[in-house]
């Protein structure tokens, strides 16, 4: 045997996933669509929010959904009923979507429509406040939901998720009169771990706050649309990271 050798790699541990995520994003940029990664704990209201937002935004945006779930097609069926194309991604035992799963969902979506005709692609991640935070899927924006019934301490207990988010939606605010929780404390804790993210209080049941959230989405979409087009619409060529609009 020779002397021991050492190679310095300096690679990201998740380089394989990041490579696929970057490839996905290059497709999204070439198609000029805004991809949103929607994450939360189970039951925080992702699907209910999507039902409301899809219905409200359908007149102005062409949209599709990649619907991640560990088992069942229940959420996908709910969203199909809104009239938007939905591709279910059943992860089996995996507790998050990764970039390869999203790429597989995109292949199925492309059999049904031309993604270049879309303005927004929603990816509803598996309900989990831990794992999805570390696995990029090629999204332009990460949206995290936190329902008021979960308590005000969750941003401090699951800080990576809330740090990674570009936008946090505090959901089910119509229940606030019945709960011993102060929404101001939830907001303060989000701001402690991520002072730069946008925060909105919403209720999918009553519709409160949805317009402000939709305005934020419109701004993100407009920013993407006005950004310089990729020099070459070739997925092998990297595109610049879009600038986050507050």
């Amino acid at each position, binding site marked *: 045997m020779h002397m*021991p*050798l*050492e190679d310095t*790699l300096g690679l990201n541990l998740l380089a394989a996933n990041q490579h696929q995520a970057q490839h996905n994003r290059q497709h999204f940029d070439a198609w000029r669509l805004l991809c949103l990664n929607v994450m939360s704990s189970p039951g925080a209201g992702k699907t209910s929010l999507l039902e409301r937002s899809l219905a409200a935004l359908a007149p102005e945006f062409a949209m599709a959904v990649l619907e991640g779930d560990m088992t069942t097609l229940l959420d996908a069926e709910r969203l199909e009923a809104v009239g938007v194309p939905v591709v279910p991604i059943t992860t089996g035992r995996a*507790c998050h979507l990764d970039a390869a799963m999203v790429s597989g969902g995109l292949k199925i979506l492309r059999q049904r429509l031309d993604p270049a005709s879309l303005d927004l692609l929603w990816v509803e991640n598996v309900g989990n406040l831990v794992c999805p935070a570390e696995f990029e899927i090629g999204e332009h924006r990460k949206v995290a939901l936190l329902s008021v019934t979960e308590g005000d301490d969750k941003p401090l*207990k699951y800080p990576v998720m809330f740090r990674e988010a570009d936008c946090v939606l505090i959901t089910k605010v119509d229940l606030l009169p019945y709960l011993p929780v102060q929404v101001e404390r939830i907001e303060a804790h989000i701001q*402690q771990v991520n002072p730069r993210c946008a925060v909105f209080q919403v209720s999918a049941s009553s519709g409160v706050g949805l317009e402000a959230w939709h305005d934020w989405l419109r701004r993100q979409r407009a920013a993407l649309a006005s950004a310089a087009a990729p020099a070459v619409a070739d997925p092998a060529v990297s595109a610049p990271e879009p600038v986050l609009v507050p």
Partner: protein
Amino acid sequence: MHEVDMTKCLLLSMNQWKQQHAPTIPSVQQVHLQVGTFTCVEPEQLVFTWRVAVQASWLAGAELVIEAVPLVGRCLQCNATYNPSPDSAYRSPCCDHPMEEIVSGRELRIRSVEYTLPESPPASLQPSLAVAPAA
């Protein structure tokens, strides 16, 4: 347990690294990772899944060594660095400012690989250079 998927990613990177030495198969002693404390990685679970994953592969016996990188923030009010903690809601102790800038703690890095190379590639893997004698 997302450490399983993280191990899969690590193995893909290791297999790519191995190709640099082809056809020789390096004997890896240690793989060094730097893992920030402000990540969703549980180091013990990552080591466990690594051991299970490599036991029947070319990496059998290779040890995964994880260096924890502490969470360090920088207060944008006074420019001081500090260790944000959930006990103080990640505030800077100097100015009570929220956690604006993270200096370290988000690392998920394959730092280096320690290995040896055999004197010569295994005979079965050596490219055939024998030239048939001229007739």
